Every structure is written in C-alpha cells, then in structure tokens.
C-alpha cells in the first residue's frame, strides 16, 4: 500500500514491470481484505453453517443434537411451510408484474416533454425515500377499515370499502396497494432507460409510418428489455423477503392470510427457538430464489435485446 519505490533506471523495463505486477496483485488483495473478511464471516461461513445447523435440533440454550434429515422431513409435511410458500408466491406473482406495469407507466408519463416535469419527478420519487415501520404504520392508518382515508374515498364514489388488514381476503391486496406507493426505484430505472433510447429510432419508424403503439411495442420495449430483466430479477429477490410490513401490520394474520415465508422463518428461529428447522427453511428460501434467478436469466435469451450485443 505504500509508495512505489523510485524506479532505478529506465532501461530495466522488463524487471520493473514484473515487480509492479506483483505489487499490484498484493495491493489488490490488501484493498479487498475487509470485503474478503466480511465475505468469509458474514456470507460464506453462515451459509455453510446454516447447512450444518439444518441437520440438528437446537434451541440455542442447550447444545445442538444431530438429527439428520428430520428437519427436511418435517419441511416436506409441514402445512405451514406450504401455506407460507403459497402466500409468498401469490404475492410475488401479483406484486412483481404489477410493479413493473405501474413503474413503467409512470416513467413513460414522466418522460413526456412538458414544462415542470422535474417537479413531478420529485413528487413521484418521494415515497421511495421512506420505508420500514413508519411507512407500515402510515398505511395501517390509511387502510383502516372504519376511519381510513382510502375507504372514505371509496365510499365517496359509492364503492364498498374492504376490511383490508382485518379481512383474510383483503389483507394481501392491501399490502399490494401499499407497495405500489413505493415503486420509485424501478420507475427511476425505466425513466433512465427511456431517456437512453436513441431518438433516431423513433424518427426512422415515424418515416416508415409507425404509430405510437407500434413504436412502443417494437422500439421502446425491446430497448428497455435489459432494464425490465434487471427489475424483474430484483423484484423477485426482494419480494421473497417481505418481512417488516407483515410483522408490523398484520402479524401474519388475520388467520395466517399474510404468513409470509420470512415471517414464518423468523418465528421459528427467534420465537419458537427452532434454529435447526429455521435453517432448513432458510436453505429452502435460498434454493427457490437462486432457481428463479437462474430461470429468469435463461429465459431472458429469448426476449432481452442487448444493444450491439
């Protein structure tokens, strides 16, 4: 990391070059040393450890006992595992595509060249700056079945206000409504993607007589396809990890209607102290997410268009 030694003489280029390459290699490893330590202690180590723990029964107060594959046998027959997987899957299938549609629509709207659009952009992003418990509480209030603002508006238009988080049917849709408020990040990415589409493409399409819809379908969508893939992959990974909202707003209820996978995992680990079983659930989650990520990349060959690639 120190200063480079003054170069002895200019004509021993070969030797100096070799020493510099070695120096650079050592420097590389010194620079990433914090990351390597973190990777071993906080990623690789825990991932391996959780495999080992998943083969034990362990309440963390008494020493673990090796129970072989019993946690995985339990997993295969645990109705709550299937239930939480079902809830999470419905959420992913509902929320991820909806987020894409909404954030793309908003990006298209913001991409219109009208005066004052930067003000609108700020207002559209604003919810993305906040998250966590405060947002969950705010939406609990907005979606209150009796006093909530949303139901007041719905009733004003003559629509029946759902019971939201006190109803088994409406709790999950309530979470989806809330999540639509925070589509700022994918929206920014779509907007940047839209601004990156070369204007000439639209111009030449217009000369060929293409209408707005055809331009959108045959230029905008293919040019945005790498961003769509990115947002889908991230959306799926993130959607499998929903926790704070349900912990704060519904506690998984009513009647387990919002028992998300990670909430069930958390409860097994930190409420029932079933570290072994929770680790088996953790590995289940990992395998599902990795499989879906690989699948999306494989399928992407068919529809993602890389410029010049």
């Amino acid at each position, binding site marked *: *990391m120190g*200063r*480079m030694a003054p170069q002895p003489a200019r004509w021993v280029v070969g030797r100096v070059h070799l020493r510099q390459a070695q120096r*650079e*290699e050592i420097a*590389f490893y010194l*620079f*990433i040393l*914090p*990351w*390597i*330590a*973190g*990777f071993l202690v*906080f990623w690789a*180590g*825990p*991932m391996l450890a959780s495999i080992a723990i998943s083969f034990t029964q362990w309440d963390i107060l008494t020493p673990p006992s090796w129970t072989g594959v019993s946690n995985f046998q339990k997993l295969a027959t645990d109705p709550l595992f299937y239930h939480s997987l079902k809830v999470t899957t419905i959420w992913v299938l509902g929320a991820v595509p909806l987020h894409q549609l909404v954030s793309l629509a*908003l990006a298209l*709207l913001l991409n219109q060249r*009208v005066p004052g*659009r930067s003000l609108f952009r700020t207002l*559209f*992003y*604003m*919810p993305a*700056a*906040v998250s*966590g*418990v*405060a*947002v969950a*509480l*705010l939406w609990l*209030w907005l979606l209150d079945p009796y*006093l909530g*603002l949303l139901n*007041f508006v719905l009733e004003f238009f003559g629509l029946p206000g759902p019971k939201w988080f006190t109803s088994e049917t409406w709790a999950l849709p309530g979470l989806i409504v809330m999540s639509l*408020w925070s589509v700022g*990040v994918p929206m*920014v*990415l779509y907007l*940047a993607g839209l601004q990156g589409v070369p204007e000439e493409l639209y111009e030449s399409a217009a000369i060929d007589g293409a209408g707005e819809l055809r331009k959108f379908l045959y230029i905008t969508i293919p040019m945005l396809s*790498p*961003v769509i893939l990115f947002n889908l992959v991230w959306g799926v*990974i993130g959607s499998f990890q929903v*926790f704070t909202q349900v*912990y*704060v*707003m*519904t506690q998984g209820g009513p009647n387990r209607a919002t028992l998300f996978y*990670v909430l069930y*995992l*958390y409860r097994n*680990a930190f409420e029932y102290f079933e570290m072994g079983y929770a*680790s088996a659930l953790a590995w289940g*989650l*990992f395998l599902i*997410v990795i499989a879906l*990520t690989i699948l999306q990349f494989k399928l992407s060959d068919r529809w993602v268009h890389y410029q010049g690639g």
Partner: protein
Amino acid sequence: MDVAAGSNSGLPLATPRRRALGLARALKVVRVVTIYFLLVLVAFLMTMPFVWMLSTSLKEAGDVFSYPPTLIPQPIRPSNYVEALTKLPFHLFYRNTAIVAAAAVTGQILSSSLAGFAFARLRARGQNVLFILVLSTLMVPEPVIMIPTFLIFRHLGWLDTLLPLIVPYYLGGSAFYTFMFRQFFRGIPLELTDAAKIDGCGLFGLYRRILMPLSLPAIASAAIFSFFARWNDFLHPLIYLKSKENFTVALGLRLFQAGGQTGQGVAQGRVVEWQLLMAASVVAMLPCLLIFFFLQRYFVRGIVTTGLKG
C-alpha cells in the same frame, strides 16, 4: 412528395391543409392537457399519504375519529409532537439510530470504495472469480444467513449492543455499493490516474487523493442509499436489541404501536392514539425526507449507475 405537389397546385388546396394543421394543433393541446391531468393525479396520490400523516399528527383525539374526515385539523395541536416524543425515550431512540446510521454508512463507504477501487483499477489473479462472488452475494436473501450471523454476535457477547448493526458494514456490507464504486471508478479517465502514478503517487494515495475526491457524487449516492437502509432497518434491530434504551427509532415506533410500555401482545391494527403515532412517524421519516429533498439528484444518479451500466 405530397407536400411538394400541394405547394405546386396553388391556393385552393391551402384551406384543407390549414384545417388539418388546426386539427393537429388541437390534438396536441388535448395530449398536453391529458399528460398534465395524469401527472397531477399521480402526484396527488403520491403526496396524499404524507399530507394525511401530517394532518392526523396535528389533530385532537376527537378530531381523528370525526366522520367525514377533515383535512385541516380543528384546532391545530402541535403539542401532539411533544406528547409523542416524551411518552417513550424517543431522544434515546433517535440518538441510537443516528449513531448506527453514521457509523454504518461510514463503514459501508470505506470498505466498498476500497474493494471497488481494487476491482476497477488493479489486476490480480483470481480477480474475476472474486468479482462474481461479490455479485452473487446480492442474490442471497438476508434471512438465509440471519441465524448463523446472530449466533456469531451472540458468541461475541454483542447482543443488545449497537455493534451488530455497525461492524458488518466495515467488512463489505452490501455488495451493491462495491459494484457502484467499481462502476464509478471505471468511468474516471485513466490519464488522470496515470499522471498521478508518474508523479510517484502510491496506490493508496491514488485511491485517497485522486479517485475519492473525484468520486464525491458516487460517495453521496452511496451515503444516501445506505443511510436510508440503516435508518429504516427493522429486522436487524429486532433481532439484536433487547432493552428499550438501546432501541432504534424503528423499534421505538413499534413499541408505540403496542401501546407504550410493555411491547407485548400487540392486537393487530388496534391503535388508539393515531395522532400521536403519526406525529412519531413524521419525526421518524423526517431525516430521510430532508436528505431526499436536498440531495435528490445523487439519489437518482445512484440508482441509475448501478442499475443500467452493468
């Protein structure tokens, strides 16, 4: 061709053409009006929750339950804020969260800019494999590693301290930031750093005195993102903190919802003092909203650098 033909055939054709032009102009006006209508509608939907939160936070208890709901509190009660913030030791929650956020953000920027520098500017064997490992950690859901990490901190005797919420960020934290710094450093012209090398600047000096000062926008983006993430984090404080005086704002808000002192047995959604809860939520969100308003462009740029220039 049509245009040329039209201009050759003299005046009689001019009138329909003018009419067509008028129609096009009318369509354009309709289009702009529609765009503004939609922009205003969405902006209203996006800001209304904030407005409603603020409105509720300034209402009297009776006013909160009035139907139909009113937007302007009658009377306006700023004392809700005093009551909300003194009911629980909010100043401690705030202090703890500020310590965690400041320390974790610093660590995140240091460790990820160092690694980002190495991946962007240095060559070494095994570099590509390591970079793939960096990116692959992004695909590992946190809950997968949550239990063993908890056990590590328990073994170290760090439970119920702020350390588990800080230390990991000095050791890489989220790979998102390493990737962000790598992308940014790669965009800085090589000539700049080559000149510094010739001047006898060591590699660390290159990082510290040339690249980092040139990367203030990237540092700002990273700081904003990690600040938001740390400030709003709920899962980690929930796992690691036990006693009230060590709580962060997120945990404190939860206590509030639970009705004050116990924190036990929350009946779902059953909150009575909405005006106090909303006042506390406003205060909890305030740092993030202020940062957002003042540093918005870095927020946007950060998303774009990591998302699009892969």
